[in-house]
């Protein structure tokens, strides 16, 4: 889609006219959009991203959400760099939620303001650079006019225009205040952008995140921190599967609990308990006894049986799936033909259990519906603010202009808060309308787990042929899974012509140069289990399977697995360089318990593990060598990679959601076990210096930790586990 953003000032004003912008609850609510008044006093030069004030201060707008990703800082840094502004004079604000101006330009995001897939810095980089450069170019021209000298004789220093020949200089604010600002700002082409070698802010080691001080002081920056006078509290339970409705509810019993004022069936089938306090609402939730529709049939659902069925489908090649290469116009037929013709085929199967997002901030929102249901003020931490507004407007049957969304920081998103229907936030909206009062809705942890939207189970089959040189020649990887996008966002699912990208982006190509005949295949299966995108989406299982397979192949041929990956990458000098780099960092090969992975062409990882008698894998250290292009904010990029490695490690070790007799077996952090500090390894990250445009950071390969642990386990203990997670029970069974 890559819609060019209109940097013209008048168009920005036009787009802004008539829109309701949010007013923060308190000035401390740093996560919120503050009043963006296009005619605000003091603004001298502005476009969609930057407002320069006569007092030399400057506001930069960040479209992406802030859920820990750091884009609230990194994206404005890009504009500040090209504008050459003094970073200490910059205020940061979230942009308003206007798709036409601020949509994530990534093609598969289809024109939505969504912060997903580690795309924000990568996607906004070219646009925001031009936005910053446009302001700088305008100021240079204004100063040239003021001084009667050619603009070419001027240069900028942070927040100053300098004419070296005459020794004159003015601050940006002074230039803007004295000059006659044109109605239409000049166009900027790519040749007018800074040479990356000249960057002052981008890549600066000392750069700090703007959101840190408020976060360490306990300031109210999350939607759950919002408090309004007269506010009611709610929690809700949902059926175990998609589209279930309550058949009977023990309403009287729950209503008898002091403080509970209502038990309500919501339009989407949820049962909500509303109370005067949250503690009373929680008591109500615990007392709820609900019979759900379809209960008899649902009670037969068992995830282990379901997964076994997927394995059968993966094995049955007569069930044809979607040739993922079609999306790129590259058919996988040659791989299939080569496999048919081959005398020997190397074949393996892999499986993965359901995963749960487990973001620390429970799903919540505060809604205040006023004006007889005609207006809504909403506090919600969302990865898709424009979709959130649109959904709320639909739920209330009002126009988008009557919805005001306060963009809070998110206490973790990981895809859970990128669902178009915003189920959690709409609870508050529906209940506020019903009760005519502000409502804070918080899902209990148990409610979130029981009705989570999980990363789907998957089964995979990989088949390959061997070349004369002992490498993998033809390669066919087939995943059988649900397609989360159909639940996440039916509109994007249609716009993308049902390309199951969200289930399998990594399947589109192989990172290995040696594989000439490649087929990635996606077989979609559907169930009523709610599924969603979750960090690295389909890449986690597909990378796990591929990199386990490559390791198995190498070891079977008696070749060192890292050396084998280098041989498989002949001609890809950059990939070989990164593999050699990570080998050097980890002192590869001198001890048992090491596993290596090539996550993508630009991402190599080595993990070192130990194994306890209990069967628990202990991950000691992890090394990453990555080329992510220009690293806008190096310290944050390091934090993102280390953090994502540690988060994904949980999928290798213990994290799993299972269903027995139609119910989720897990309920909270004691039985859905994410990585704790004692399991977290040190992660050493190397970013290859680069002037190429930014690529994904966290989602650019950190999931590689999962196959790295499997490969290290084989290295250490000689057993190969092919079913995620590699928990103690499965490790002990394999060792027995």
């Amino acid at each position, binding site marked *: 889609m890559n819609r060019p953003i209109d940097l013209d000032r008048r168009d920005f004003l036009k787009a802004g006219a008539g829109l309701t912008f949010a007013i923060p609850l308190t000035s401390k609510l740093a996560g919120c959009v503050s009043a963006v008044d296009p005619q605000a006093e003091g603004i001298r030069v502005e476009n969609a991203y930057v407002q320069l004030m006569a007092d030399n201060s400057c506001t930069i707008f960040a479209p992406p959400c802030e859920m820990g990703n750091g884009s609230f800082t990194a994206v404005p840094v890009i504009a500040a760099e090209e504008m050459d502004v003094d970073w200490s004079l910059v205020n940061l604000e979230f942009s308003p939620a206007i798709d036409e101006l601020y949509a994530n330009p990534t093609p598969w995001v289809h024109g939505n303001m969504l912060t997903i897939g580690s795309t924000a810095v990568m996607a906004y980089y070219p646009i925001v650079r031009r936005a910053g450069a446009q302001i700088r170019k305008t100021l240079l021209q204004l100063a040239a006019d003021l001084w009667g000298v050619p603009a070419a004789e001027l240069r900028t220093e942070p927040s100053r225009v300098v004419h070296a020949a005459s020794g004159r200089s003015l601050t940006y604010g002074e230039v803007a205040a004295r000059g006659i600002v044109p109605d239409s700002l000049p166009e900027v082409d790519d040749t007018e952008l800074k040479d990356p070698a000249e960057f002052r802010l981008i890549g600066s080691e000392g750069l700090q995140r703007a959101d840190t001080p408020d976060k360490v002081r306990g300031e109210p920056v999350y939607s759950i921190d919002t408090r309004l006078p007269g506010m009611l509290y709610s929690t809700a339970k949902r059926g175990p599967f998609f589209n279930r409705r309550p058949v009977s509810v023990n309403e009287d019993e729950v209503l008898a609990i002091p403080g509970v004022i209502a038990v309500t069936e919501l339009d989407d089938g949820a049962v909500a308990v509303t109370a005067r306090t949250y503690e009373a609402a929680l008591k109500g939730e615990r007392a709820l006894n609900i019979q759900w529709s379809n209960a008899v049939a649902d009670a037969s659902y068992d995830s282990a049986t379901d997964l076994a069925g997927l394995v059968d489908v993966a094995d049955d090649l007569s069930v044809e799936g979607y040739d993922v290469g079609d999306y790129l116009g590259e058919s996988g037929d040659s791989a299939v033909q080569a496999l048919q013709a081959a005398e020997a085929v190397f074949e393996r199967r892999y499986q993965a259990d359901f995963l749960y997002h487990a973001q620390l901030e429970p799903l919540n929102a505060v809604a205040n519906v006023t004006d007889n249901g005609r207006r809504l003020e909403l506090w919600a931490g969302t990865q898709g603010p424009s979709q959130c507004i649109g959904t709320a407007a639909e739920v209330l049957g009002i126009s988008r202009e009557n919805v005001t969304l306060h963009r809070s920081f998110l206490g973790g998103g990981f895809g859970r808060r990128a669902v178009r229907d915003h189920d959690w936030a709409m609870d508050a909206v529906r209940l506020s309308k019903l009760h005519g009062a502000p409502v804070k809705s918080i899902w209990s*942890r148990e409610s979130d787990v029981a009705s989570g939207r999980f990363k789907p189970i998957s089964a995979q089959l990989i088949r390959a042929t061997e070349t004369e040189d002992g490498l993998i020649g033809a390669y066919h990887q087939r995943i059988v899974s649900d397609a989360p996008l159909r639940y996440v966002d039916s509109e994007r699912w249609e716009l993308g012509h049902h390309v199951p990208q969200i289930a399998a982006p990594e399947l589109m190509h192989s990172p290995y140069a040696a594989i000439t005949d490649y087929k990635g295949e996606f077989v979609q299966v559907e169930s009523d289990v709610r599924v969603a995108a979750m960090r690295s989406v389909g890449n986690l299982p597909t990378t796990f399977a591929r990199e386990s397979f490559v390791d198995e192949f190498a070891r079977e041929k008696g070749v060192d697995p890292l050396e084998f990956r280098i041989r498989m990458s002949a001609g890809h000098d950059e990939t070989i360089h990164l593999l050699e780099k990570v080998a050097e960092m980890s002192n590869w090969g001198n001890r048992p318990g090491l596993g290596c992975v090539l996550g993508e062409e630009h991402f190599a990882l080595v993990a070192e593990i130990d194994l306890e008698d209990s069967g628990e894998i202990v991950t000691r250290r992890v090394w990453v060598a990555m080329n992510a292009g220009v690293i806008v904010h190096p310290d944050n990029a390091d934090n993102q990679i280390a953090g994502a*490695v540690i988060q994904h490690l949980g999928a290798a070790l213990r994290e799993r959601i299972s269903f027995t007799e139609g119910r989720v077996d897990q309920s909270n*952090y004691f039985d859905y076990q994410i990585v704790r500090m004692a399991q977290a390894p040190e992660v050493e990250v190397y970013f290859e210096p680069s002037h190429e445009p930014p690529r994904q950071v966290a989602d650019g390969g950190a999931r590689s930790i999962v196959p790295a642990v499997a490969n290290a386990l084989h290295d250490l203990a000689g057993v190969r586990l092919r079913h995620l997670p590699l928990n103690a029970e499965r490790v002990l069974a394999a060792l027995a």
Partner: protein
Amino acid sequence: MQISLQVNGQARSVDVEPDTPLLWTLREHLGLIGTKFGCGVAMCGACMVHVDGQRAFACQTPASVLEGRSVDTIEGLSDGEEDHPIQRAWIEEQVPQCGYCQPGMMMSALDLLQSNPSPTREEIVTHMNTNLCRCGTYPRVVRAIERAAGEMGA
């Protein structure tokens, strides 16, 4: 029931049910939202506060035991003018990502450093294992505690 307690050094009185967890008393009755709700079952540590100078899960501390007790939260960590050395260390090490778990992390860290001013790495990990971070900031939490220990001991 009406209870009287000290919160961050100030006398406060609040009317809640005897079984109301301190978490909700702080967040929704007293407006101190720095203490976070994560799990409600003492498994994540996002609600960590101090009661009479020792760390406690606010989600597991009912109002009925709080009469006359002294509660400290993240809002009381700084002296009102300057950040506490732990907060400075957290900023210096750029610990938070989403940040939601960090107030609880810092209150746990304070508890550690009050009883053990120069903990080893192993002691840090053992003590802090009560606190979950889904973003995976653990290595930075360790570094920040080591930094704060250095500063507080100095």
